């Protein structure tokens, strides 16, 4: 991999050279099934593939099976059935090789109290096999890029959750594997540094890594991933580019209504392709040619007092996510605000 590179290739696959499914993929998962001893079927016949230079998103509710999947790839869990291949090699049979080929940011906060970010990043970079000079150079770039300089020599016990999260990302990225797996990397990170982090995620892919990004933050995923899969109850229920998934649901526009708290039932919408209510927000999928009708209807509801305010805009990946996962009978997706509150 990149400049630090003892574990991977030199910078190769620039963004334009990204591979699509169907061509040779770095990570290939087939029929992956994991049943815990308690009987919980966390993964149920999952197929997916990620190419070099690609950022692949894995979306789903808490408990959808995302973390179970990445833990199997990195060899912390043994699959009940199915195969995991990296560069054509069987990772279930060779978990040691999997750890060399993958760098991993776990969902849990990285346990580095007692260490400073400088020590933690350098030690992990060296443990992953890079030379001291390479690690130092790459750490300096990451610290600058993530704006972590002021905390570089502070004991991690005194760092906020968001800064620790960024340090954990730097630990995964300092000597990246050919596959980089990031499990909820933006949790607790402030909005400004979250953008810096997404830029570094893209840089990893541009330098040739395959990036598997686990998140429940649909809004951010839409802006950051090349392709994604939506996981629900251990199964992949949709896969494709954000644009392809949005086309699949059909609604070009989203009408969002903030209902008056006193409104007992959501008002029926005559043109809705889909309608999902989360709290007092009602999101209605609207075809492009009925936009005027939708606005008239929403204004009428507002005049009648059952709606406090409304907005009409292009449909988002969140609408797709809510439509797909909601229709499957799961709990409704968290709202954009709820995601932001979680991540703030």
């Amino acid at each position: 991999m990149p400049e630090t590179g003892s574990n991977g290739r030199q910078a190769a696959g620039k963004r334009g050279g990204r591979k699509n499914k169907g061509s040779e993929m770095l990570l290939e998962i087939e029929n992956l099934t994991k049943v815990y001893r308690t009987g919980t079927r966390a993964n149920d016949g999952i197929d997916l593939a990620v190419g070099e230079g690609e950022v692949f998103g894995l979306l789903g509710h808490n408990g959808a099976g995302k973390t179970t999947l990445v833990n199997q790839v990195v060899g912390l869990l043994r699959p009940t059935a199915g195969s995991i291949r990296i560069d054509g090699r069987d990772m279930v049979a060779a978990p040691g090789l999997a750890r060399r080929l993958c760098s991993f940011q776990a969902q849990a906060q990285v346990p580095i109290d007692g260490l400073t970010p400088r020590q933690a990043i350098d030690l992990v970079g060296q443990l992953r096999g890079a030379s001291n000079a390479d690690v130092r150079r790459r750490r300096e770039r990451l610290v600058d890029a993530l704006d972590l300089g002021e905390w570089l020599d502070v004991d991690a016990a005194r760092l906020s959750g968001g800064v620790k999260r960024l340090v954990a990302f730097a630990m995964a990225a300092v000597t990246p594997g050919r596959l980089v797996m990031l499990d909820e990397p933006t949790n607790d990170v402030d909005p400004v540094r979250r953008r810096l982090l997404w830029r570094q995620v893209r840089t990893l892919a541009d330098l040739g890594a395959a990036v598997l990004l686990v998140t429940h933050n649909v809004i951010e995923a839409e802006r950051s991933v090349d392709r994604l899969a939506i996981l629900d109850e251990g199964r992949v229920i949709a896969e494709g580019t954000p644009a392809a998934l949005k086309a699949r649901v059909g609604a070009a526009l989203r009408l969002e209504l903030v209902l008056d708290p006193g409104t007992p039932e959501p008002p029926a919408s005559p043109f809705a392709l889909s309608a999902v209510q989360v709290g007092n927000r009602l999101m209605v999928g609207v075809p492009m040619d009925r936009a005027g009708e939708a606005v008239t209807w929403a204004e009428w509801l507002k005049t009648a007092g059952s709606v406090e305010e409304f907005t009409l805009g292009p449909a988002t990946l969140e609408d797709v996510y809510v439509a797909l996962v909601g229709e499957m009978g799961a709990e409704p997706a968290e709202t954009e605000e709820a995601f932001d509150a979680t991540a703030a």
Partner: protein
Amino acid sequence: MQLLRSYRLLVTWQALRKKNYLPLMMAVQTLFSLGIVLGYPLLFPTLDRTSIYLIATGAPAISMVSVGLVALPQTVGEQKTEGSLAYMRSLPVPRLSYLVADLTVWLAIVIPGVVLGVLVGAWRFGLDLQVSPLVVPAVLMVALTSTCVGYAIASLLPYMLTVIITQAIVVFVFMFSPLTFLPDKLPGWLEAIHRVLPVQAMGEVTRGTLAPNEFGLPLGAFLTLAVWCSLGFGVTYAAMTRRG
């Protein structure tokens, strides 16, 4: 070379991780030794020669057991809960390097208390200890067995159960284990249990090499320690390499 490099890096990692409470842990553990050496004569103003030697040589043994079977399992259990072990397991480092590196740091915590305990004991009771050359491997063996068994406890049990079990071990080791007294003071059934458990062997090996003129050095004790050490190491290693 790679194995050595990862061992060195992991020792650094583990020592830095523990640095905030490492001096405190070493101080408390040293106080264990000193407390026994200085406190027992207050409880029993008249001590015979054998008892004096037993206390002076039993104190460092208790200190090693208390770190290995109490402080270590509690700390490792806590690390397991916070995801430290899982994180280490996701890195491309040999499990053996990790385990040996952590044991190295724990041995470094144990040894100063042992040395200080022996010196203070000899000074307090005016003993001229004719220490056997075997004392270095003997003390390392006791410390290693203690830490390996402690590691196995933490690897096998959930954290809360580890805490409870280690509290019970404290009482068992201090009150009912032949470290500062000879096993024939115990009731027969407890004496029989101690012939199988490692604690009595730890006491015998420690006093047999610290004061060889006063106590014999039963080879069986070394054998008992070797078995328990291998068992502890094996169980820990198996737990670390197991995929759920």
